[in-house]
């Protein structure tokens, strides 16, 4: 399916693709969803025009297992849509229970064997069965009238020259499939894909890639990580770039080690970072407070939210960690929380996160999620415009006075010294300390240090440009104001047009900086809004609670989802229309139609 998506992108189409899979290595149901369009698209949709099934479970679910969990994808196929499946499964047409869809049984094994023998290879189940996938993709290309060459190109790149024999083998299989489908089904399928030839070679890129790029562009030279879905990918990208860029990527023994390693690196002079998801995030609680009280400069933590609580749904979507992120440890300390909404914002806000972390010497958390991390979007170009480096103030020893690492200043920021600098020695501590970093329990100093640290938050509020904090998409005035954060952006933007066609005008308040919270701006907008509707991938409506905490405004209407799956465009449409037409205040989305 990645090959399919890539090939479509190459053909000049806009592509969105994501995968759903179990927290398991082999044998449990997984599926890709690829959406292609001639216009830009940013989210999945529920309806499936062409369904490629590899096994029975994909079709009809696991109803025969002792603990059934789903009923397959057949229900998602749109009227007039098609199903390509393995003719050798022996499925009876009646089993589909639908007469409004087109069935394209294809004998995967037979074609595979035929293709292989064209290439002069003997079929061996254990080695070649993985290529059944390719038969199915090729069949879809044949039906959709796409040139098979794109697939071959993509395979060629992936496998590289020294595995040209594999490419050739695949090519034979593609041909065999194509021949079979054309002969058997001709032009039976109504949908044909036509790319935009003029479109320059677009990127197919994930949030995890953009985050890695943002870190690298910011000059991050230390990343620690402990394997965990869905955060590992970002570190893997960085590992693969270690030979080109000056960055050390270290697998720690746990997340406590990771956050503390990064804090050490930050204090030692690096822009440093780590990435994790819920369980690891919980283990970093103590470290974040430590980073904040010692004013570690340049520390960024990227959190890839996934289904919780606890281990929860490791490979599934959620926006469940917001309230924890805003208050991620005991006691009170300043930190910044940012939430990008798409790939471009991931790049930009990740880059800027290091500026905040350096300039204000506090930890910055970037809130990603499983959906944003692992889905693929087509992007023509990523913009690096306006990404200016700001490392904050440095201390220059003057030989006269000794250095105050935690000097009390109006902004709360104390110029820093990088270890190794003669004359800039300091000690700092997780205990309350005085300006010199020495342990101090006296009262006047305690006040000064608490207040100084917390002043940095107010300073961020004053300094941060609006675009880092929030954005009101659409007109000032609308029937419905969607209030949301993070990766729901794509679905909201995609749905927006459709809802407007229903005569409901929609605007969308996207909040990007969750701490310090843009309370005044949000309050002003909400006070004017006719019908604010919260939209979040969690149970509690956490942004809503944060808004209430910060502004005293409670948003009663909310569209929530907590099934562990991302919002589709359709769900947002349905939800918004329902809300606008006076549906229940709390609408929970997730239908069998939206995936399994």
């Amino acid at each position, binding site marked *: 399916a990645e090959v399919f998506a890539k090939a479509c992108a190459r053909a000049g189409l806009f592509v969105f693709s994501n995968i759903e899979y179990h927290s398991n290595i082999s044998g449990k149901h997984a599926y890709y969803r690829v959406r292609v369009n001639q216009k830009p698209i940013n989210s999945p949709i529920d309806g499936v025009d062409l369904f490629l099934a590899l096994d029975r479970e994909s079709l009809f679910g696991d109803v025969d297992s002792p603990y059934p969990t789903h009923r397959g994808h057949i229900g998602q196929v749109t009227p007039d849509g098609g199903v390509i499946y393995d003719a050798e499964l022996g499925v009876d047409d009646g089993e589909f229970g639908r007469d409004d869809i087109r069935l394209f049984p294809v004998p995967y094994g037979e074609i595979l064997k035929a293709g292989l023998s064209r290439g002069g290879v003997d079929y061996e189940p254990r080695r070649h069965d993985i290529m059944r996938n390719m038969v199915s993709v090729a069949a879809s290309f044949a039906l959709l009238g796409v040139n098979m060459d794109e697939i071959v190109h993509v395979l060629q790149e992936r496998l590289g020259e020294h595995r040209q024999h594999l490419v050739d083998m695949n090519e034979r299989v593609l041909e065999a499939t194509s021949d079979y489908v054309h002969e058997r089904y001709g032009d039976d399928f109504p949908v044909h894909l036509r790319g935009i030839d003029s479109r320059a070679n677009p990127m197919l890129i994930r949030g995890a890639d953009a985050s890695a*790029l943002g870190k690298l562009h*910011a000059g991050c030279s230390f990343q620690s990580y402990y394997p965990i879905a869905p955060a590992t990918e970002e570190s893997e990208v960085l590992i693969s770039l270690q030979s080109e860029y000056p960055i050390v990527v270290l697998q720690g023994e746990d997340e406590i080690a990771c956050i503390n390693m990064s804090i050490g690196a930050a204090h030692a002079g690096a822009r440093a970072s780590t990435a994790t998801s819920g369980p690891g995030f919980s283990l970093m609680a103590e*470290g974040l407070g430590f980073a904040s009280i010692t004013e570690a400069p340049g520390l960024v933590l990227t959190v890839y939210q996934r289904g919780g609580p606890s281990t929860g749904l490791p490979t599934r979507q959620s926006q469940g960690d917001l309230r924890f992120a805003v208050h991620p440890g005991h006691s009170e300390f300043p930190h910044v929380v940012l939430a990008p909404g798409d790939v471009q914002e991931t790049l930009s806000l990740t880059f800027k996160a290091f500026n905040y972390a350096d300039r204000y010497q506090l930890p910055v958390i970037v809130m990603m999620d499983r959906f944003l991390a692992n889905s693929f979007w087509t992007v023509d170009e990523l913009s690096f415009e306006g990404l200016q480096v700001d490392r904050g103030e440095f201390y220059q020893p003057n030989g006269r006075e000794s250095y105050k690492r935690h000097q009390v200043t109006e902004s709360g920021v104390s110029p820093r010294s990088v270890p190794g600098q003669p004359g800039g020695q300091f000690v700092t501590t997780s205990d309350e300390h005085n300006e010199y970093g020495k342990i101090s329990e006296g009262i006047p100093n305690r006040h000064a240090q608490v207040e100084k640290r917390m002043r940095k938050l107010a300073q961020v509020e004053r300094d941060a440009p609006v675009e880092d904090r929030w954005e009101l998409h659409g007109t000032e005035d609308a029937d419905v104001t969607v209030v949301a954060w993070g990766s729901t952006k794509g679905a909201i933007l995609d749905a927006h047009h459709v809802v407007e066609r229903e005569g409901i005008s929609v605007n969308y308040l996207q909040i990007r900086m969750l701490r310090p919270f843009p309370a005044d701006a949000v309050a002003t907008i909400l006070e004017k809004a006719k019908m604010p509707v919260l939209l979040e991938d969690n149970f509690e409506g956490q942004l809503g609670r944060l808004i209430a905490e910060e502004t005293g405004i409670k948003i009663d209407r909310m569209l929530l989802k907590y099934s562990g799956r991302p919002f589709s465009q359709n769900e947002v449409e349905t939800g918004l229309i329902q809300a606008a037409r006076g549906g229940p205040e709390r609408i929970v989305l997730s239908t069998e139609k939206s995936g399994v």
Partner: protein
Amino acid sequence: MAIATEVSPADFRTDIHPDWCPGCGDFGILNAIRQALAELNIQPHDVLTVSGIGCSGKTPHYIKSYGLHTLHGRSLPVATGAKLANSELTVLAMGGDGDGYGIGAGHFVNAGRRNLDLTYIVFNNGVYGLTKGQSSPTLRRGDQTRSMKEPSIQDNINPIAIAIAAGYTFVARGYAMDVKSMKAILIKAIQHRGTAIIDVLQPCPVYNDLQTAEFYAGRDLATAIPRVYKLEDEGFDPYVHDPDDGDEIIAKKVAATARSFEWGDRIPIGIFYGVDLPTLGDGFAAHRPDAPTTSIHKQAQPGQDVTSVLGRFR
């Protein structure tokens, strides 16, 4: 990067007096550190001390260098990150036995694998000093110190043997009241390229009334012979001479382990094991063989161009 001025222990003094109790072994360790650094002629600004939380954890406040007094149990990860980012620093991690072998035991074990070039000093007093004397993981079965209600019903761990089994490439034990030998071990540890650990027997006169200076000096024995003896005085050779010889490595590890279990009337101090193996820094450096040898944080340029990477995604 040491500049050519003569460094003296006094250069590492700070303006505050340690707030340890009179007679505390920590004073000896502090002095040994200052002396070792001076003897190695390392400039104060090229040193980073990284400690955990405990009486021992306060040490960086008393050494005039860069210092991070971190969280309870986390000195090793913080030191690891700092050294990887800023490899030009001489990094000394340190902390208590509760800090290192209790809450920090996961890091203690896993740092052994990495062989990053740093020195880890454990102030082993058998108790949790700063929290008023609870037993630490090195306290032995049956021992009952002043603040315990009953003798320990748990065994002690053997940190030397664990360190060897975890991959540490330099493993030693010091004795806090013998500043001279402590300093000598520290110098070797700092010079060692790779991760060095020194477990230091450290009397805590306030809470540990069993493993006291008197005990180590053997003053309670029928004939008062010091319990503490030096491995080198017995001709013990801790070093692996051919790091490519797997058998020699095992033999040295086993010999060191055997010695590490000695306790009671004779307690060995000194270097138990040493081997030269590639460091973690070497491993990372191999990614970019032509890169400069300066600290990686200096090599990375905020704002560095990454557009060449974009091709991957097309």
